[in-house]
């Protein structure tokens, strides 16, 4: 089974009769259950096996063994769902003690679309609490381990997704990305992670961290699968006022048609500000090596400048935490979630709230305090509004640079996967891990991490690609070229 890497290969196996969705699903549950990675919070085995059985019946009987692939592009494909997305009747915790007992009464639009396309949800993947973290050390359900190096972090916040896909617990997974939460674990775990343009995929059912930045995206073993999942999930949703009414292309087709030779004439921007001191030398070499390969294939390498890059982390940590402090106001133990027994003994409502909300994890509390402060009377203009202005400047930087180039490339992170506990003592150092992924988030750009090599310890290095808003097509094309040049998925 290990050799079956992509959705197309699985579908070939279904078609040839050597595999059924039920077999595949059972196999994945075996792998998951024997794993020590702590990648999953909740498994929905019965639900998944039932989905698989229905699909297997379809496969075997209704269509005479052949399924119209066009009707169900994800027929029988087992997926992992980051535990930030709701599934009706399946516990959804957001890796928080606050939601330990929360079983949502509705399903996230993205998951509805995937399942309608034939996908099977295996369960809910571990993550940093409320998607706040870069190492997956902030989960109330314990740290997720790196897929191959047990002393290392998988990256966060979609660490469970990164490890699950890399360790073959599932064919692909959903992650969410606010400041790099898909791309960083993809880079650390050695898989493809893609964050679409803000507004591409409905956020309905994605438990909010920072509403103006959050975006769902695929984490897969290949660029082609990322393209396929993305196009199934993309599109306007009446339930999400920030989802865009912009046509969705057949990105899978784009990837299938892309050849290495298509690098010719591709204008690849290299932002100067991303190649700073402090980047691990092996990471730098790997990225520069890939840039050279692109150049060798005829790509036009263009140095560009994004002058406000140095303010990215500051800007992000004001805006994201401000929105988060607001989004997390709803966790009050009244309508859902965990209410500690002592809360009903509270003398008054104020006391009740403090007892309930005291159960957020340490990092979440830190961000709520920071965000509450940034929005509070007397500080709003100096922090929140100021950061929103700098955010505009960062976006303008990109718009100017994209006048000259089709895509841009950089490292995903300054280092490969770091050690457990290495940065957890110092929040600011941890925040700086996201220095290269945050700017694209701030501007709402589509961005992707594609594995391009390993360091001497065998830790994966991802190349970061980002494109103009709503131009996923060029991003997938460039991503596929990089994948091919790196010797990745065939």
């Amino acid at each position, binding site marked *: 089974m290990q050799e079956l890497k992509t959705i197309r290969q699985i579908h070939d196996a279904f078609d040839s009769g050597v595999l059924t969705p039920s077999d595949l699903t059972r196999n994945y549950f075996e792998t998951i259950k024997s794993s020590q990675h702590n990648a999953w919070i909740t498994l929905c085995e019965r639900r998944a096996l039932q989905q698989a059985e229905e699909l297997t019946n379809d496969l075997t009987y209704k269509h005479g063994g052949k399924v119209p692939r066009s009707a169900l592009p994800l027929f029988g494909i087992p997926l992992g769902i980051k535990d930030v997305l709701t599934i009706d009747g399946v516990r959804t915790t957001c890796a928080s003690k606050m939601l330990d007992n*929360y*079983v949502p*009464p509705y399903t996230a639009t993205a998951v509805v679309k995937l399942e309608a396309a034939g996908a099977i949800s295996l369960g809910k993947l571990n993550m940093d609490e409320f998607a706040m973290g870069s190492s997956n050390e902030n989960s109330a359900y314990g740290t997720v381990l790196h897929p191959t190096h047990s002393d290392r972090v998988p990256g966060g916040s979609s660490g469970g997704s990164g490890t699950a896909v890399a360790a073959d617990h599932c064919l692909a997974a959903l992650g969410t990305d606010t400041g790099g939460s898909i791309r960083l674990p993809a880079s650390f775990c050695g898989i493809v992670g893609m964050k679409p343009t*803000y507004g591409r995929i409905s956020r309905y059912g994605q438990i909010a961290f920072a*509403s*103006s*930045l959050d975006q769902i995206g695929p984490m897969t073993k290949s660029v082609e699968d990322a393209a396929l999942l993305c196009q199934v999930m993309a599109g306007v949703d*009446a339930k999400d*006022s*920030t989802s*865009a*009414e912009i046509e969705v292309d057949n990105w899978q087709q784009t990837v299938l048609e892309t050849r290495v030779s298509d690098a010719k004439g591709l204008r690849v921007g290299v932002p100067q500000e991303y190649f700073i001191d402090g980047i691990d030398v092996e990471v730098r070499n790997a990225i520069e090596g890939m840039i050279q390969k692109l150049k060798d294939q005829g790509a036009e390498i263009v140095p560009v400048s994004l002058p*406000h890059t140095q*303010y990215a982390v*500051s*800007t992000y940590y*004001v805006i994201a935490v401000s929105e988060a402090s607001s989004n997390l*106001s709803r966790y*009050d*133990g*009244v*309508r*859902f979630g*965990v*209410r500690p027994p002592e809360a*009903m*003994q509270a003398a*008054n*409502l*104020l006391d*009740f*709230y*403090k*007892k309930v*909300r*005291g159960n*957020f994890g*340490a990092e979440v*509390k*830190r961000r*709520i*305090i*920071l965000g*509450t*402060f940034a929005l509070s009377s007397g*500080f709003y203009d100096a*922090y929140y509004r*100021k*950061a*929103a*202005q*700098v*955010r*505009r*400047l960062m976006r303008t930087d990109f718009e100017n640079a994209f006048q000259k180039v089709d895509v841009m490339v950089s490292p995903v992170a300054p280092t490969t996967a770091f050690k457990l506990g290495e940065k957890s003592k*110092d*929040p*600011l150092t941890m*925040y700086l891990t996201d220095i290269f992924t945050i700017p694209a988030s701030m501007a*709402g750009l589509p961005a992707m991490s594609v594995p391009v090599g390993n360091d001497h310890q065998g830790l994966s290095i991802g190349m970061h690609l980002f494109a103009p808003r709503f131009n996923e097509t060029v991003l997938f094309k460039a991503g596929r070229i990089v994948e091919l040049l790196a010797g990745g998925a065939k």
Partner: protein
Amino acid sequence: MIDVNETLIQKVADLARLELSEAEIREYASSIGGILKHVEQLNSVSTEGVEPMYYGIDGSLRLREDLVQPMAVKEDGKPRILETAPESIHDGFKVPPMIG
């Protein structure tokens, strides 16, 4: 420059309805102080006349047609929304006495 001390942390935590231990207050005063010190670099950016970017998407708000959708109910006909209630009574969400 803002002096991030324990009093400020306590005040903001009260505003956010977070119960903190004394150790947490000390830790946050220190770490948040450090983060805000870093954030101060924004003061050096000239933003005069720059329109703040508050939204992830451009353009106008889409409107929803005024249509009522049927409510989800449990097998016993009770509203499904009560399933997630930590405590409920008479089909309402139960909380400690808010007055008196």
